[in-house]
């Protein structure tokens, strides 16, 4: 490691500190994370021909800018938006930008955990600073070449321009000279004003899409390694069950089946191809030790939750009291790409290829299983065919590592769709007891929300309100009851239940107060940006214009993850069908990096909101999950997707998160719209039409 790299390493660390992130940094040029192997000689030539000012980027002599992406892309578009941020401050030519994914291990800059709509919020400053500091180095190098004052130089589209005579040098031609320039101190780096942005804030197509539409894009499940075997597991039906006896005689008769081994999550059939592994798995005769959970059902879990509801805060005397309970089911993530991982376990080391939201967790998981230091495990982060929180786990990595260890060969473990549906870390089911009160003038005077969440510890401590409304005497209590069903983070995390229930209940309060649900909210909202999106959605939807009989509009809003959103949704209830006719969304995420990405997130969250409002649920019987696949865990398809009208308010705030934000107000607006259309409150999700009649 030469002093240049050491310096840039320290600089990056210092800059990284501001974002609260912990990096393991190394020279960026060793960041090959794709399974494509480069020859050593070629690698050396490449290094000599690169300008590597920091761990996040390099510039080649042909002007190509390569940006290291330390977060996982599961459809939110961060491989594009993170590169845009760096390219902006570098004044790069966007057409010459390439991205390279960082993983864990092997001296890479470190793949960071991705979730909670945090990527842009935590990384934007750092990516911009990396671009800005490299830009200064390129200016210094050019000024030295021309023997002029750097202050007379400017940059545009991948070139340094001498303003005195209009001469310019492309960045690629400065690779050698810029490599000799000291990395500027972080404080001396000046960042652009948003008004000067040329790349950030402009609708930009995703960098991966050309590979996606030709089938060339590499997801975890597409990885093929020399000598690789394929494995599929038989897993227990009930949570907490364990393998008793295994009769694998029939499985071993299937041509292509190589071995059958017990692993932590069940019994793995290792074969020459996926089909032989699936057939082998289906031919296994396994007896299970049933474990302690076989009597657990959705009904017993719900009973447990209801039992722990405590007395609400006392409502002011004389006020009109409103009470309601809401119910949310377990939800699976159901990523389009079922879970999978490839592991190649060698003596004392291991390489993993997988689509993961947590490369570090995957690395530690493999190291623990193998009893080797984490730094001996390399995790290559592939494209993720959906994540939504599911790929933060490392259980699928454990499957592959254990199978590869047993097979003494690289192994790809594929979860079948049924495995994926039945062995998730689920959005927990919850039961919400709500009580509120409105005074004689229609103003709310009390609010109490108890969330009973399966798997949460019982509690009796009411905390802050957790609502965006000014309501005196407001409190929130999270409590629960034990559940053996594994819980995990799902799109918008706790807001999938809490904020949905809040937005349904505020509607009920408005009704009790005899007020319009939009005006009622508007009068109580504390935050001006939230008020603005609410007003915008109402205005766009012609809120005050009545709809035909049988149709109704619902409204709801949400602020979180640094962004603000409101929805108005129109539904028509006819006979035994709820049809969503139109969705209006208004969004303010502050400074948007890629407006195309913002719109996509709103559309996607809308589809998730409609799916979970009207279709999808996971139920429990005999201690396990009842549903299997898309045919009984139903997601929205094209014919049911309404026109989605999005108003993007280009806010003046900081960079907000967008992955989660668009979800919570959708199911709430649907339920509120069904009420507007029918006069019936739907308080159990998913809303079932037969409960309407």
């Amino acid at each position, binding site marked *: 490691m030469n002093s240049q790299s050491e310096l840039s390493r320290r600089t990056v660390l210092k800059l990284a500190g501001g974002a609260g992130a912990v990096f393991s940094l190394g020279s960026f040029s060793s960041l090959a994370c794709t399974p494509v192997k480069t020859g050593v000689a070629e690698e050396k030539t490449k290094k000599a021909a690169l300008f590597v000012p920091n761990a996040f980027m390099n510039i080649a002599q042909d002007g190509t800018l390569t940006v290291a992406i330390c977060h996982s892309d599961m459809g939110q578009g961060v491989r594009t938006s993170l590169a845009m941020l760096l390219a902006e401050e570098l004044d790069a030519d966007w057409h010459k930008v390439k991205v390279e994914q960082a993983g864990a291990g092997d001296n890479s800059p470190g793949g960071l955990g991705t979730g909670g709509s945090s990527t842009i919020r935590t990384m934007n400053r750092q990516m911009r600073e990396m671009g800005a500091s490299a830009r200064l180095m390129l200016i210094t190098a050019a000024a030295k070449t021309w023997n002029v004052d750097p202050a007379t130089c400017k940059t545009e589209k991948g070139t340094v321009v001498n303003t005195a005579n209009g001469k310019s040098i492309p960045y690629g031609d400065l690779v050698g000279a810029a490599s000799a320039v000291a990395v500027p101190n972080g404080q001396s780096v000046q960042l652009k004003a948003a008004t000067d942005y040329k790349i950030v804030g402009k609708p930009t197509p995703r960098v991966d899409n*050309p590979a996606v539409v030709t089938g060339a894009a590499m997801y975890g499940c597409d990885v093929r390694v020399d000598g690789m075997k394929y494995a599929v597991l038989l897993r227990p039906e009930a949570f907490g069950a364990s393998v008793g006896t295994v009769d694998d005689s029939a499985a071993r008769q299937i041509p292509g089946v190589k071995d059958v081994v017990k692993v932590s999550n069940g019994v793995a059939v290792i074969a020459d191809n996926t089909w032989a592994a699936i057939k082998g798995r289906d031919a296994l005769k396994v007896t299970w030790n049933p474990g302690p959970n076989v009597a657990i059902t959705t009904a017993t879990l719900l009973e447990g939750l209801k039992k722990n509801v405590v007395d609400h805060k006392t409502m002011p005397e004389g006020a009109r009291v409103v009470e309601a309970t809401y119910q949310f089911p377990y939800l699976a993530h159901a990523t389009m790409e079922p879970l999978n991982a490839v592991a190649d376990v060698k003596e004392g080391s291991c390489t993993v290829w997988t689509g993961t939201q947590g490369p570090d967790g995957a690395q530690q998981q493999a190291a623990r299983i193998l009893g080797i230091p984490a730094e001996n495990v390399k995790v290559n982060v592939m494209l993720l065919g959906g994540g939504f929180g599911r790929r933060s786990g490392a259980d699928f990595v454990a499957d592959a590592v254990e199978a590869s260890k047993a097979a003494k060969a690289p192994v790809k473990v594929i979860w079948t769709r049924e495995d994926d549906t039945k062995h998730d870390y689920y959005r927990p089911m919850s039961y919400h007891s709500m009580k509120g009160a409105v005074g004689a003038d229609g103003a709310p005077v009390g609010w109490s929300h108890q969330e009973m969440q399966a798997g949460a510890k019982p509690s009796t401590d009411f905390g802050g309100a957790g609502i965006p409304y000014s309501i005196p005497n407001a409190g929130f209590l999270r409590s629960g009851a034990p559940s053996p069903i594994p819980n995990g983070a799902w799109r918008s995390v706790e807001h999938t239940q809490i904020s949905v229930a809040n937005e349904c209940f505020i509607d009920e309060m408005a009704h009790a107060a005899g007020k319009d649900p939009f005006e009622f909210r508007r009068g109580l909202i504390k935050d001006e940006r939230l008020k603005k999106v609410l007003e915008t959605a109402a205005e766009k939807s012609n809120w005050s214009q009545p709809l035909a009989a049988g149709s109704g509009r619902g409204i709801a809003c949400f602020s979180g993850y640094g962004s603000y959103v409101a929805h108005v949704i129109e539904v028509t209830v006819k006979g035994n069908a709820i049809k969503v006719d139109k969705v209006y969304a208004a969004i303010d995420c502050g400074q948007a990096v890629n407006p195309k990405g913002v719109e996509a997130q709103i559309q996607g969250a809308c589809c998730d909101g409609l799916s979970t409002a009207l279709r999808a649920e996971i139920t429990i019987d005999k201690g396990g999950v009842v549903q299997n696949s898309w045919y009984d865990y139903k997601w929205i398809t*094209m014919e049911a997707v309404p026109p989605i009208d999005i108003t993007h308010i280009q806010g003046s705030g900081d960079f907000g998160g967008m992955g989660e934000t668009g979800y919570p107000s959708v199911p709430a607006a649907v339920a509120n719209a069904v009420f507007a259309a029918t006069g019936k409150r739907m308080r159990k999700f998913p809303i079932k039409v037969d409960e309407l009649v």
Partner: protein
Amino acid sequence: MALYKIHVNGTEHSVEALPDMPLLWVLRDIVGLTGTKYGCGVGACGACTVLVDGDEMRSCQLAVADIGHKQITTIEGLSKDGNHPLQKAWLAEDVPQCGYCQCGQIMGAAALLKRKPHPTDADIDQAMSSHICRCGTYVRIRSAIKEAAAGGSR
């Protein structure tokens, strides 16, 4: 195990497989074409869609022994260099998010445009409603199909 000769994207491949091995796994594990994706294995999501003699087919539902001389087209063979009108429209509309279902969506749309070069909204909804996209790119898929049908002039 038996030896089968199958025709994929204009090339003949000899594959040794169990007779009931679905074309999906033949393509992915033996031929090495991974653009055709596994999503459910029961024909419920459309991620594995290919063209068989020009018709839309879920490759997880077609056993290798039943292919015979039929011509298989996968996403890798839809066009020489990614310039099929649908691929171009998909890029113009920036359709993919995670992208995993998109090869299947494009193959489904290709079969639709072959049947109906100028589909109505209802035609599109009906043809594409058996394709799941968990990212919810449906609005853009619809636009991209219309754009491709209009010859990219939209």
